[in-house]
């Protein structure tokens, strides 16, 4: 069996599961945010139960439109707060103690290796970076799981991605996942599991692995996953709030497809508008002038991402025609970045630093684009109108490229500003 099949089998109370099989599984954690929870809460209340299945395992994180951007968002966030009080939820994260959900949950040890987690947010697949099975669903599915602690799933077929060679400087997890999406397309892994393996992944940090699993959904995948190892152990030890289990794929595990990449001569990649599959090497993007650069989000808002950006920005200035906005993923990351002096680097360069929030990533607030504006962003989607006006454009990149581009005023590689 593959790692994905093993985790699913364990949560279905079975010895084995086969791809295509419909199973009922126990969920370790259920998640929703300030956009999806209001719908879930309303549906939950129709079920007619008076309590959630476990107040420690239903997690609500207001992160999309908070700090409340307007009256309507304030009303939505209030629903989460009141529901959390009414059901005595342990894991409700208020502004000032919160973060972007997918940065927050692994950091707080609420998700661990071998867990099965579902969330009313498509990027719930992020936790595959630490060897969990996690996937996004809609609000009604989440409402049902909040009541029962269970959900149904179809066991996905798995695709294996093997990364070999030497990882070049300034190439990171973001580029590795863009490489895969560029190869297979935005529906290339539809309904399937993406398993990331090979020597490059074995040496990749947890932050890099979380970035990769995060964007599995951009290829249509149900989940993305990396087998946990010593690197994972160092990350989860002392954090995990529950016991965890390390699963790995058997040597005879079955895959519907296998892709192998040699990354030795790879450049950082940029996904051009308006699909994450429109991937090109950064050197082919040098003509693209930008108005804004955004560093953050559940894809690249972790401490390693901010360090990478700071390395590029140290002693440099943001181009006068560019707004650089930095969004640390959580309060912890914010504090860490401040202690390490990264904020001085960002402020000296002329960047704006935001409190943790999804903000412009989904075109919510704090960095919306006007008609005709272009933005390079470390986020995960560059759909039409994703970050603002339907006539604006988003280019996806890693944090080093986003930082270098902010200095250059056009998309450029870190090597150009060093």
């Amino acid at each position, binding site marked *: 069996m593959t790692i994905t099949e093993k985790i699913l089998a364990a949560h279905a109370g079975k010895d084995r599961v086969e791809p295509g099989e419909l199973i009922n599984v126990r969920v370790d954690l259920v998640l929703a945010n300030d956009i999806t929870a209001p719908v879930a809460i309303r549906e939950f209340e129709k079920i007619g139960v008076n309590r959630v299945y476990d107040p420690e395992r239903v997690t609500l994180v207001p992160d999309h439109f908070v700090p409340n951007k307007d009256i309507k968002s304030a009303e939505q966030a209030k629903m989460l707060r009141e529901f959390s009080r009414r059901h005595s939820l342990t894991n409700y994260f208020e502004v000032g103690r919160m973060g972007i959900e997918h940065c927050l949950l692994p950091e707080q040890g609420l998700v661990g290796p071998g867990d099965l987690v579902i969330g009313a947010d498509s990027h719930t697949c992020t936790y595959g970076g630490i060897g969990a099975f996690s996937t996004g669903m*809609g609000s009604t*599915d989440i409402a049902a799981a909040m009541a*029962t602690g269970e959900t149904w799933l179809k066991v996905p077929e798995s695709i294996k991605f093997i990364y070999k060679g030497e990882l070049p400087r300034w190439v990171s997890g973001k580029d590795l996942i863009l490489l895969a999406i560029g190869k297979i397309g935005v529906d290339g892994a539809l309904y399937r599991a993406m398993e990331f393996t090979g020597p490059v992944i074995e040496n990749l940090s947890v932050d890099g692995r979380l970035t990769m699993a995060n964007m599995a959904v951009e290829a249509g995948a149900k989940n993305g996953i990396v087998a946990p190892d010593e690197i994972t152990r160092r990350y989860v030890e002392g954090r995990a709030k529950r016991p965890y289990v390390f699963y790995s794929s058997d040597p005879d595990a079955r895959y519907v497809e296998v892709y192998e990449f040699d990354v030795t001569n790879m450049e950082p990649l940029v996904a051009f508008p308006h699909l994450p599959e429109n991937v090109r090497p950064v050197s082919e993007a040098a003509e693209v002038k930008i108005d804004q650069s955004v560093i953050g989000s559940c894809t690249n808002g972790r401490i390693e991402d901010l360090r990478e950006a700071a390395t590029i920005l140290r002693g440099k200035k943001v181009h006068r025609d560019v707004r650089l906005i930095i969004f640390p993923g959580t309060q912890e990351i914010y504090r860490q970045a401040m202690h390490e002096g990264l904020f001085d680097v960002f402020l000296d360069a002329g960047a704006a630093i935001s409190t943790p929030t999804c903000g412009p990533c989904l*075109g919510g607030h704090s960095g919306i684009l006007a008609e005709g504006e272009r933005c390079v962003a470390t986020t995960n989607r560059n759909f039409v109108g*994703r970050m603002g006006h339907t006539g604006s454009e988003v280019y996806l990149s890693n944090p080093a490229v986003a930082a270098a581009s902010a200095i250059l005023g056009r998309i450029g590689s870190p090597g150009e500003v060093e």
Partner: protein
Amino acid sequence: MDIKGKVWRFGNDVDTDVIIPARYLNTSDPRELAAHCMEDADPQFPTKVQKGDIIVAGKNFGCGSSREHAPIAIKEAGVSCVIAKSYARIFYRNAFNIGLPILESAEAAEDIAEGDLVEVDVNTGLIKNLTRSKEYTATQVPPFMQGIINAGGLINYVAERLKK
């Protein structure tokens, strides 16, 4: 349940930001969401669409975010069903859960033109193009999911199970 309506066509990879842009997600009121349904692909769509109309699209319909607001907006706008070559998985589940009929048929998705009058039998998956006098069949829904539909959506299904 028999469905008959005029077709609006869209392309491949119609994402949830197109179906209902995030700038309107500060509410979950179905009426408000419906007023902006598909507007980033066709600003006139919310005013043009008539009750009972059908959306036909290419591959990977509903890709992107998990927002249930997307099928809710489509349903509330009056669209009676969606026919596409394939669906993104979260959208597929969501549509079933909230009771928006969706059918998967590559043949129908390719052949049906904008403005065609189409009749759909959701139970059998038979799609009739009345304008062109043609028929297509959609992929069968797994029996388990048929159970959710028969119960009237996931919430009723779960409520019934919890009562037992």
